[in-house]
């Protein structure tokens, strides 16, 4: 396990050749997606300080764009499977529309290396974007979501429980509540063992109302934990607008009340998200304690599955059959789709001269092919063996069958 020694080997997640400074492009970037507002302790003397994306290599920027596309095309491909392939059994809580948040945050983290040095991510019931951004093996994730024996978790967990500690993806969580406190617990361990690792909890606006919200933030502050709470405010929990359960316009205000550093960012702009995350990671690694990032964002599909969606088209519209008493106005969905994270990230890269439109389109085709072959591989994988359900209860052995008396 970890000890004090290796705690001091700080590895830089964005090492590699620095490209020229991109300060000249700042104005353009600001136009494409400015920070919505900032609260709490963040006070930048000028627009440059804290614009950490200025130092990113072309390679890294292109990787971020690629990650956004991977998430998007995983979603669209899976939605099409659900809508057109009667043999497909997987399901998802679609993340499309929110891609820039997972991508921007995870780009600021340490995602490979020994387990006792990488940063950890705790995800939610809507995990596919976080998982891809953290670097899980996509074909194995796709196989897991279709309950295959060779899936990332052997078919035991499926969508709401996908996990891959080898890249620091502690995993999805079907419950709303336990995860964020537990994530703070990992941060506690880092501090106790003198490691510079960081623990990140992704969470939705629905988590604000949970009692564990208080526990996580209060203790993170009291113990100054290297903990980053990324609240993706997509306005709805299930079918209810967040104003049903939260008296704040910016949920970050709730975190600021604890004396925690907060940022409210445009969750559609991966660069803004990256900047906020990088600042938070720097703070955490240097012993400066927790940060709360609220990303204003939106999901293009309904809460669960693909109702209202059409094969080959992005997004779901109209009445959600699960909603009954309330649902999202179609115009709201369309208004948000105008500020699409894929478009925004592509425009920034083109504007910054990192790629041109042709290369951008090429990359998108590469990603589509990659995802298509991931599904092809995954959907040809073997199904699980019934008796294996009795394994993995404890580290060793199996439990007895009881269903036959």
């Amino acid at each position, binding site marked *: 396990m970890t000890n004090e020694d290796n705690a001091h080997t700080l590895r830089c997640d964005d090492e590699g050749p620095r490209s020229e400074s991109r300060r000249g492009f700042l104005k353009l970037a600001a136009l494409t997606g400015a920070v919505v507002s900032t609260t709490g302790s963040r006070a930048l003397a000028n627009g440059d300080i804290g614009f950490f994306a200025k130092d990113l290599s072309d390679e890294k920027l292109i990787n971020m764009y690629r990650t956004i596309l991977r998430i998007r095309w995983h979603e669209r491909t899976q939605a099409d499977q659900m809508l057109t392939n009667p043999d497909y059994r997987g399901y998802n809580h679609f993340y499309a529309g929110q891609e820039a948040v997972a991508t921007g945050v995870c780009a600021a983290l340490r995602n490979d290396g020994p387990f006792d040095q990488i940063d950890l991510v705790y995800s939610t019931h809507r995990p596919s974007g976080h998982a891809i951004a953290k670097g899980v093996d996509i074909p194995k994730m796709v196989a897991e979501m279709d309950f295959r024996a060779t899936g990332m978790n052997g*078919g035991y967990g499926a969508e709401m*429980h996908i996990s891959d500690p080898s890249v620091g993806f502690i995993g999805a969580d*079907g419950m709303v509540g336990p995860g964020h406190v537990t994530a703070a617990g990992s941060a506690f361990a880092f501090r106790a063992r003198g490691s510079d690792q960081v623990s990140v909890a992704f969470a939705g606006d629905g988590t604000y109302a949970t009692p564990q919200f208080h526990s996580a933030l209060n203790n993170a502050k009291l113990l100054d934990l290297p903990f980053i709470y990324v609240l993706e405010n997509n306005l709805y929990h299930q079918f209810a607008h967040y104003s049903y359960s939260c008296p704040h316009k910016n949920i970050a205000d709730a975190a600021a009340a604890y004396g925690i550093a907060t940022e409210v960012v445009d969750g559609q702009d991966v660069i803004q998200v990256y900047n906020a995350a990088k600042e938070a990671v720097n703070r955490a690694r240097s012993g400066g304690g927790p940060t709360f990032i609220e990303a204003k964002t939106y999901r293009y599909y309904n809460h669960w599955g693909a109702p209202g969606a059409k094969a080959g088209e992005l997004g779901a519209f109209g009445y959600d059959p699960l909603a*009954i*008493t309330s649902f999202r106005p179609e115009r709201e969905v369309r208004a948000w789709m105008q500020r699409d994270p894929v478009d925004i990230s592509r425009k920034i890269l083109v504007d910054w001269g990192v790629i041109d439109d042709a290369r951008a389109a090429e990359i998108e085709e590469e990603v589509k092919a990659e995802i298509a072959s991931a599904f092809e591989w995954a959907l040809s994988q073997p199904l699980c063996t019934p*008796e294996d*359900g009795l394994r993995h209860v404890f580290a060793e052995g199996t439990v007895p069958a*009881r269903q036959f008396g």
Partner: protein
Amino acid sequence: MAQKSWMYSVLEAVQYEMQQDPAMTWIFELTPPVASTPGKPVINLETEFGRKRVVNTGIDEYWMAATVLGASLAGSKSATYIPYQGALMPFELIQNYASKMRHKTGGVASLPAVWIIEMTGQTPGFAQQHSCYEEDSYYMHIPGVRTVIPSTPYDAKGLMHAALRSPDPVVYLYPAGLRTLTGEVPDEPYEVPLDKAAMRQEGSDLTIVSSGGGMPGVLEAAETLTGEGMSVEVIDLRVLKEMDTETLVNSVAKTKRLLTVDQSYYTLGPGAEVVARVAENVEGARFKRVAFPDAPPPASPEMFTWMRPNAEGIAGAARDLA
């Protein structure tokens, strides 16, 4: 009398009681208090009784349960529908606070509280956290709270009336897997008692005892076994606390064979208590339990459906025992 869905039967009882008592409240999280059934008016508690009495809340099941308790202590009958994902969130509140309230106050507390706690539909694929049925045991161990678990729309309505009229706090377990059942359910209010098991079929060779989501498989197995010439007695516990020992003991005194069926884990499932009570009171009987193994439910439908007790497994166990 009309064919009614499960949810309609339940909300019909709730609607009636809320009409009778203008102080009564209802709190929900994900499941809007809305139900329809062919040929009957839609029930929508939220629009009928307004948002002061019927509240849609955030993700905080502890608060939901506590609010119902607080309302009842203030003299207002109150109920909540807690979705299965949050089934154990309010556990401590019910276990250590509400359930002991009458006893610790020497009987002076007012406690017309009903917590409807959903159990999953055990949908294959949903896995571990979204497929557990285990809460019956937890709530059943608590003294001071009546715990019931209907298995038919008729009982669902009658137990709801009885729960809402009881001065005792009631945990009303709602097996979501049975939501698709329909049945003949009277329009008028009626009560199903909070302390009686239901004899679903009489027989003399073997007693099978189950409850809630376990019943459809048991009834199917009983049909098969009856077809094979076995005389099977089937008891639906219906009430977990206080368990109707008499019905159980009388049955096994006659059949001398007891098979229990739990959709939840083997260790300390309700079947353990059934076997133990009968074993203490009937000599020379033989016993067997069918249950979900002591493992969380996995996502893979292959693993999960194999692990879940079904009619075939139940019938096999019955044949071994008889």
